């Protein structure tokens, strides 16, 4: 099943499928290791439209909600 990163439940894992966005966004995400095929886990993070925090390659990365809504992930 494919979902947006924002729709992932806290603690759920997924594999990045696509990023909807221009080169700038793609490159910024890539520089932090957020590339297609990468497995990531969403951490239980702040509510009220705050950033999404994911664990990717044993590092925590905070992603602004707007940007997170452009990331498509596949999960079981």
């Amino acid at each position, binding site marked *: 099943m494919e979902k947006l990163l924002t729709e992932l439940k806290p603690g759920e894992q997924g594999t990045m499928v696509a990023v909807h966005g221009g*080169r*700038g966004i*793609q*490159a*910024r*995400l*890539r*520089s*932090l*290791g957020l*590339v*297609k*095929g*990468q497995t990531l886990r969403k*951490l*239980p*993070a*702040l*509510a*009220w*439209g*705050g*950033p999404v*925090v994911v664990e990717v*390659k*044993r*590092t*925590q*990365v*905070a*992603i*602004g909600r*707007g*940007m997170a809504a452009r990331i498509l992930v596949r999960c079981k």
Partner: protein
Amino acid sequence: MRDMVAERRIRSAPQKSRKHLENDILLVGQPNVGKSVLFSHLTGVRTIASNYPGTTVSYAMGRMRGKGSTLVVVDAPGTYSLEPLDEAARVTVDLIDDAKRIINVVDSTHLERHLPMTLELIAQNKPLVVALNMSDEARHRGIRIDVEELSAELGVPVLSIVAPSGEGVKQLVDTCLDLQPLHKPTHNESGHPGHHPHIQHPAPTGRGTSCPGHVHLDRDRIWQRVGELVEKVQTLEHHHHSFSDRLEEISIHPFWGSLLALAVITVSFSLVRLIGEFLITGAVGIIGEPWVELPFGTELLFDKVLHPPLIALSRVIGVESFLHKLLIGTLVDGRIDFMQSFGILSSGIFIPIGVVLPYLLSFYFVLSLLEDSGYLPRLAVFLDTFMHRIGLHGYAIIPTLLGLGCNVPGIMATRILESRWQRFITATLISIAVPCAALQAMIIGLVGRRGIGPVLIVYGTLFVVWLLISVVLRLTVRGFQPELLVEIPPYRLPTFRALGTKMWLRISGFVREALPIILGAIVAVNVLYQLNLFAHLAAIAEPVITRLWGMPSEAVVPLLVGILRKDVALGLLAPLNLTGKQLIIGSVLLAMFFPCIATFVVLFRELGFKDGLKSLGIMLLAVFLTGSVLNLILR
């Protein structure tokens, strides 16, 4: 090639005058891997290192002895890749052009995140050695790296080091100096991992170059290649949950995280005040009556040590003489009031050493703890939602916090923000509505004499101004949505050594740079008073100062002196016999009206001339309105 370099240089505004920087050894790596620590080790030049991405926003240069000659070592700002996405990457790409040898500093605990840039660097065809830093932490976490295998796979020397203790640094230097310049790449060195023909130029100056899609494809391939590499050289042992893991979970948790953030902010501010107050007056307490008062502090020291000889001097030179005015100032009830007398030897020494220095020590101690622990990026995450409302994102809180110490490093730190617009708003807000520690020390010292209420009104007003300006600026630019994207570093226990170095750098910077200006400002004030020049100025400024703001016309003097130093200027309000209301308005106006000379210079350098002027325009309008509104609503 020459054109490409030229273009890059133009694009690397705001500092248009960047020169070539020939360097023998260049340290390159991602943010927060300990480059600055290694740099200090190599050169003995102490630099500020913290635990969050973006501490070094510009490069640092130093020298070291090696192979019988002096070598220039440069510490590049941390960058995640050589794609010129931000200022740090652009600066780094420029530095690589001019580098003879490169040390790529890599975090051993997150090899897979750092190797992509290593591959990019290998493709640059410069003599390169990879330093696996934090190897002690990796061992501790059960991460094992086969260094020889990695070296063989990459085709460049790889060494393990622990930068803070210096372990492995000597071998690193020897290996680096033994590097021979690589031959120019012949066609296709196939089989050599980094020398993939398609990633030969990983930094084709961003926008507008040919077939960007191609670059993408290859960059994705870099990540694939890194996956294979890490599989081969790294083994992970089982790692059980530690205390810091628990703390990391808690600090981004919806409920506990909010509680923690509130607690951290409250404790930090209280601690700054507690330590600062104690160093000055010997009183221990945060609000209201102190809990304990000890015979300690700079006030007591000055009264006991400096007061008697100054009084003796005063008798010798005579109260009415010009020399007395200049050296000792005016006596209050036959005594020297170190806050009000305004001579070079009285207030001139007391304000910087007796009031500002204790607060700076206290502030930087607390800030350094926050910086080194790794809490700041978490605070940025916590505040992101709120900061979005005002057109910024959470990370803008870091320059703002630095600005509470001194506006100059605060404005410099705005470089960690991606867009020009965010940098403009954040820097403008800092220069107008974020009072530096020196000014705060004086606000608490002077306004605090009238109780905690007036102090809170001053701070509250500045906060409202900060909020209103950002909201108004946000309305002027539509559809702009900055997005937070930041790596959250692990928590680390601050070390005394790092803490000490940082505090020493910041405090000695203050003594060296601010002290002469403070003394100069006091001389200037006394001389100008003597020449009676201020009377004319006061007459010109009177309509605004008196009618609109309700201040006495003499307040024009502190406002003007504020352009030199804010702390001295606020001190000048002391002898004016202001009412409580006037003191509040005066403090707020001083905080907002023209930034001090050092901030002024940095503001224009960082924003450029045009945006600097815009920023000043916003400042003047804000000062004008704030003074008038306060005069209307306060009683």
